[in-house]
């Protein structure tokens, strides 16, 4: 770079058909190399996003198969298909998989793919960190599942209460693998979250002030901010547990003066915000997708955005409602009970905003719309059952019964899986250039919807009739037989629905109808670029004047948006950094080249954890050394990124 390249007035241009030279240049600069080299070194958010989604769906299938196996065991009383140990590992691994390896990552995948496109950016703020986040997620998933494959899966449920998780009662290596795997996964989630927050604050297109950001971005940034504060709690809890089990500390060791409840506090201080972290982005997808099919903007954009943030803030103050039966003083019970009931208010904002959007719109019955609309009912069911468990005296009865199992599945499947499948129908054309089959989509929707309610609604009733959760079998004559049989039948029907979804993806990926840039006539920036988008996303950086740039021709706007006119950034990989509130251009950012550093760092980091798991301390030390070297190399100031001093006149 010459001195002139350290500061410049960016040129402005209008993107035109056949503007071959500019896009050729951009393509050359931004495209990853073909083959394995490009695969391991790419930092393209679209590539990483798709990998996240595919990996998360693979875990969804694994977790689903586990559930089907133990639903067979529970279909009738007194079954012996599984031993108690097998049952315990299956249900624990199922929970771990769905909550940590599917629900969070799949939303990271969608947000990774979509964020730069909806925000009008060339990439995420920290592309290499983005790649690192994915690779570590993959390594953590493999680490946890490798242990499971060797019979060392977690066996104390996903929240892993001590002292059952302590060495004295759980002598095998199961919990060690679970602990270390969770810490490793926590690194992935943390760096991913930091990336989302910085991207949200700095990478929005010029003119996209904070009140013009799609709700999906609000959902994900809220979840990510929460993760930044919450993940350390669970990573610490697992680390302290690992120390208790392996180096003789006494954090959770009650007889020695430690505290078993400390685990529960640390876990749920993380756990409850996490529950919101894995639904808020999904609610954001509905808030952005649903209005497209209602042919009008979302009702109450501002209150929905604020409600998203408010839910999270309150979400940090309700963790004790997971501990109502632990004998806490009634003063703190009252406080947390009231907070847990009142947290429903911001959720009500969302529900009524979506309802009003449909009511005042003209709904178009696509498969995506059906998933989004049905989500409202499922969310309501999951919400009111959550409200019931918020009431302490009622919770003393409901907790740890199948009622809670029903509740959490309505929340996680209703508010995560249904929106995610809807979002796939909505954005698959953008990802691949082809539409998913609508006819198969109807079958897909109805089997999933009927199967889900058939499978999970009866759990409320078996819960009210006293069926405890996490039992590997139950006796005849408790009044739960028929309910369990229906539940198992429903879960298989639901699985068939998921299978139809997968079939549709494979089929449409090859033979689906070509989609074009904007198949749904949707308003946001991702639909202004070709499907699939080119590696650089936007030929020129769009300029934004409203929340619905592509609908301005019909709805008008305070200021006009220019989806196809704006800054030309073509001197290497460049992006625009904008101000936090108003989205005013502040700096031309030099974006990093493709790099092996993230991939290598994920391997060396995993090496540390393998070393700790097998107590090969030298291996862990090697991993630390390797990681340190990698990080120093990664952060080495680069002139091409504008990080070092300008060459002086004589130098």
């Amino acid at each position, binding site marked *: 770079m010459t001195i002139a390249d350290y500061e410049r007035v960016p040129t*402005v241009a209008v993107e035109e058909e056949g503007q071959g030279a500019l896009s050729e240049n951009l393509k050359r600069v931004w495209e990853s190399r073909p083959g394995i080299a490009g695969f391991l070194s790419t930092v393209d958010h679209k590539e990483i996003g798709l990998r996240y989604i595919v990996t998360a769906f693979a875990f969804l299938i694994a977790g689903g198969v586990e559930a089907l196996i133990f639903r067979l065991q529970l279909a009738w009383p007194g079954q012996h298909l599984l031993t108690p140990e097998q049952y315990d590992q299956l249900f624990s691994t199922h929970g771990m998989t769905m909550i940590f390896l599917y629900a969070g990552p799949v939303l990271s995948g969608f947000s990774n793919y979509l964020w730069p496109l909806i925000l009008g950016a060339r990439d995420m*703020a920290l592309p290499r960190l983005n790649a690192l986040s994915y690779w570590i997620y993959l390594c953590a998933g493999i680490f946890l599942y490798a242990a499971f494959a060797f019979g060392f899966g977690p066996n104390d449920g996903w929240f892993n209460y001590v002292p059952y998780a302590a060495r004295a009662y759980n002598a095998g290596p199961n919990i060690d693998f679970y602990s270390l795997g969770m810490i490793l996964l926590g690194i992935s989630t943390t760096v991913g979250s930091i990336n989302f927050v*910085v991207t949200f604050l700095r990478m929005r297109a010029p003119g996209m002030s904070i009140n013009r950001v799609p709700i999906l971005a609000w959902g994900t940034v809220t979840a990510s901010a929460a993760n*930044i504060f919450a993940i350390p709690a669970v990573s610490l809890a697992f680390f302290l547990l690992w120390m208790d089990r392996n180096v003789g500390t006494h*954090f959770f060791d009650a007889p020695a*003066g430690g505290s078993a409840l*400390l685990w529960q*506090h640390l876990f749920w201080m993380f756990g409850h915000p996490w529950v919101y972290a894995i639904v808020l982005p999904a609610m954001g997808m509905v808030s952005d997708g649903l209005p497209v099919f209602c042919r009008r903007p979302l009702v109450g954009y501002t209150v929905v955005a604020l409600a998203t943030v408010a839910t999270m803030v309150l979400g940090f103050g309700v963790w004790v409602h997971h501990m109502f039966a632990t004998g806490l003083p009634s003063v703190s019970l009252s406080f947390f009970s009231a907070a847990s009931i009142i947290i429903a208010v911001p959720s009500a904002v969302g529900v009524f905003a979506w309802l009003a959007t449909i009511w005042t719109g003209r709904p178009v019955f696509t498969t995506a719309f059906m998933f989004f609309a049905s989500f409202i009912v499922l969310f309501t069911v999951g919400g009111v059952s959550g409200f019931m468990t918020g009431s302490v005296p009622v919770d003393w009865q409901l907790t740890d019964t199948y009622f809670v199992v029903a509740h959490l599945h309505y929340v996680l499947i209703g508010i995560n899986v249904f929106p995610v499948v809807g979002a796939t129908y909505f954005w698959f054309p953008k990802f691949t250039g082809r539409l998913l089959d609508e006819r198969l989509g109807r079958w897909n929707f109805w089997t999933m919807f009927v199967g889900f309610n058939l499978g999970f609604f009866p759990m409320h009733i078996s819960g009210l009739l006293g069926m405890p959760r996490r039992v590997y079998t139950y006796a005849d004559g408790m009044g739960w037989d028929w309910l369990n049989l229906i539940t198992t039948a429903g879960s298989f029907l639901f699985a068939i629905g998921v299978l139809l979804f997968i079939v549709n993806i494979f089929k449409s990926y090859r033979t689906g109808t070509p989609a074009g840039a904007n198949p749904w006539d949707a308003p946001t920036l991702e639909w202004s670029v070709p499907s699939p988008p080119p590696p650089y996303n936007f030929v020129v950086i769009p300029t934004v004047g409203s929340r619905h740039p592509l609908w301005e021709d019909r709805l008008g706007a305070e200021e006009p948006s220019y989806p196809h006119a704006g800054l030309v950034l073509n001197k290497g990989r460049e992006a625009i950094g904008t101000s936090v509130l108003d989205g005013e251009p502040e700096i031309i950012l030099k974006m990093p080249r493709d790099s092996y550093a993230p991939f290598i760092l994920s391997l060396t980091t995993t090496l540390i954890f393998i070393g700790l798991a097998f107590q090969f301390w030298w291996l862990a030390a090697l991993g630390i050394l390797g990681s340190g070297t990698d990080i120093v190399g990664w952060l080495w100031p680069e002139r091409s990124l*504008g990080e070092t*001093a300008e060459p002086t006149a004589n130098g």
Partner: protein
Amino acid sequence: MANRRSLTTALPVGAIDTRATGWWAMIFVVFTEASLFAYLLFSYFYIAVQPHAAGSFPEGGLPDLTLALPNTVVLLLSSVAVGWAQFSIERDDSKRLCIGLAFAAALGMVFLIVQYFEWAQKPFTLSSTPYSSLYFTVTGFHMAHVVVGVVMLWALFAWSAMGYFNRVRYAHIHIGALYWHFVDAVWLAVFFTFYITPLLGMRS
């Protein structure tokens, strides 16, 4: 409006001051690290208020300030040194930048050495009691951060010595300093918790 201004004003290219992406990232790294220490100290206080045998919390009686207090000053001085380094590079003095960084790194190492002796003279080990587990784990977490910080300071020193930074381009210094100031600030919280609160009566 935004776009109109951008047509006429020159924008810096690359990574400078608080407009560098890395600076924003470091802010959130600090937030998540600060949370980690908050949870560590929460664990300390949570266990401190459980019933313990008289005199067993803190284990070995009231903590001794002989090494810890001067060591705290050492760490604070290293923060001052880094601040001076930042101040210097903003005035384009890369020599003082190097001196400041080297001085800070050296003080960081002094802190680690003193901390080693502080550990060695404790009459308990990691696995003696919940207090001892907490003591070594929390101060150990902090020491790990100091180790990372010292390595970082030497790297910054090397890069500075190689003439990478000047009055405008010193984002790495800015970002690294943020981390180091955090490591020092969080020590104050750790120090207050382990060395001062027992004196204030938080003991059994």
